[in-house]
């Protein structure tokens, strides 16, 4: 799988504060990559670095196989669409005129305007002044601007920020469909993991400028396998069985708590417990929500203990 975005040891310092600190990022082609972290984690700064809006203090960036430097920048920008911080627009002009300006600057034929307006459902409002638009409509206009010219890479910074629930839902569906609709790879940031769950395939979790996890969402979800709690009639017998299997359970509210186990192994264990007369009446897997994993990862960063999962 070809990488669309690769960064190596990317750093951005403001004075002595590192907003981005040794980032090794990899965005595979054709996916929606969720860039997740609390506010101030370095998401916007990273995206600005990827667009050349800010210059790195150290490290390198490669987009679509070409290094991002003064020589390569304009060529790369031609294949990139972006929406950073909030939608940019000229409020005294119509949506159509705004898109004409951007199309002109990007050297994209004006015929492309109808296509992008259709994608973001703004065809009917094309002649209205953008100053009268709601935030959700402005946000969609921002996406339309980014989509002009069919870029291979879309960089969207918190595109659901400030939207109402319906708007968020619509934006999610729009973003999730981008690779299919436009063949673009999407890098999208958010401070809400739950929001991302429904539209991304790859995730990168960032905090204090460092990447804590990077990989497929499914891999992150595997970390959500939690402890197993058992309710038995005879705790002493159960404990003996568990000890014999090399498991030391802990006690919590009258239940036995076991570490995460493979399904096959767990089934076998349940049968043994029943056979030995421990009286197994309840078995529950304490799943962790993605929010918990996220909080676990970001909290673990400040503690010396190694974070769960494939920490990077």
């Amino acid at each position, binding site marked *: 799988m070809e990488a669309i975005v690769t960064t190596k040891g990317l750093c951005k310092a403001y004075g002595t504060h590192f907003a981005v600190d040794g980032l090794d990022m990899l965005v595979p082609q054709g996916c929606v990559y969720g860039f997740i972290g609390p506010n101030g984690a370095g998401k916007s700064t990273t995206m600005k670095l990827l667009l050349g809006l800010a210059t790195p203090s150290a490290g390198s960036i490669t987009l679509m196989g070409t290094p991002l430097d003064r020589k390569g920048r304009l060529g790369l920008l*031609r294949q990139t669409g972006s929406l950073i*911080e909030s939608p940019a627009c000229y409020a005294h002009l119509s949506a159509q005129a705004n898109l004409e300006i951007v199309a002109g*600057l990007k*050297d994209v034929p004006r015929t492309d305007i109808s296509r992008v307006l259709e994608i973001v459902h703004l065809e009917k409002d094309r002649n209205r002044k953008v100053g009268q638009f709601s935030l959700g409509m402005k946000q969609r206009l921002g996406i339309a601007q980014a989509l002009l010219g069919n870029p291979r890479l879309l960089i969207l910074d918190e595109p659901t920020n400030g939207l109402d629930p319906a708007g968020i839902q619509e934006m999610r569906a729009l973003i999730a469909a981008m690779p299919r609709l436009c063949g673009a790879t999407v890098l999208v940031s958010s401070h809400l993991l739950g929001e991302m769950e429904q539209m991304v395939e790859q995730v990168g979790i960032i905090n204090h400028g460092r990447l804590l996890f990077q990989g497929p969402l499914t891999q992150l979800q595997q970390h959500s396998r939690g402890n197993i709690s058992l309710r038995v009639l005879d705790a002493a017998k159960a404990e003996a069985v568990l000890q014999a299997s090399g498991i030391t359970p802990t006690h919590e509210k009258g239940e036995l708590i076991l570490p995460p186990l493979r399904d096959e192994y767990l089934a076998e264990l349940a049968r043994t417990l029943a056979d030995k007369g421990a009286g197994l009446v309840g078995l529950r897997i304490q799943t962790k929500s993605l929010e918990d994993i996220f909080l676990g990862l970001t909290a673990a960063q400040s503690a010396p203990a190694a974070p769960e999962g494939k920490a990077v």
Partner: protein
Amino acid sequence: MIKRCLVAENQKLHGAAVWLAFLIVPIFPAVMGTFNYQQNIALLQSAWYSLWTQHTLFYATFFFAPLVGVYAAYLWRLEHFGHNWNLIMAVPIHPIDLFLAKFLVVFKVTLLTQGWVFLLFFAAGKLVGLPGLPPAEIVVWLLRGTVGSVPVIALQLLLSMRIRSFAVPVLVALGGSVGGLLMNSAGYGLYCPYSLPLLGMNANANSDKLTGETFAFLASVAAFTLLFFALAQFFLTKRDVNAE
């Protein structure tokens, strides 16, 4: 690339509030100048030339550079608003072309302003009963003033690019043109960018102040313009974009 930028900048001016300033501001110095002319009619014996001295006394000294400043500030204000800096710096355009496009647009509006000022001057002359047409020399001075405004346009664009405030660069222009007047009286006009439009327009003078100095005038215009473009290039390429 510059053509694409130019089309975009022209489009940004459609229905823009700045045209109100374009229409209204030159009326003030025209009224003030004409009133002054009528009050001192006994002393002012050179007909159209005398009226010109009174018009430019106000227009060139107090209104022209600030008005150019307003044009420049308006064009950058559009980018300071929202997060438009992120947009214009993330399109495949050399940033200096964007600056050049803004420069050409402000120059165009300035040229149109001079045309509007000439119409007001002509109307005022007819209103106070001056005979015939204004001398062609006045048109030359207006155009030469526009040439003199080139470094002022570049400087105002540079200031408004770096300063988010709309008013501060316009006030700098006002201070600058008063300073420019003083520099002119001291004979150092060619060393001050704000003096150049005054010299070009022959502000408040009956006879041509620039006789035999055309080359020095043009050299000063070119030198200041190059300097301000070089500074713009520096800021646009060496500094991070900071959209707020």
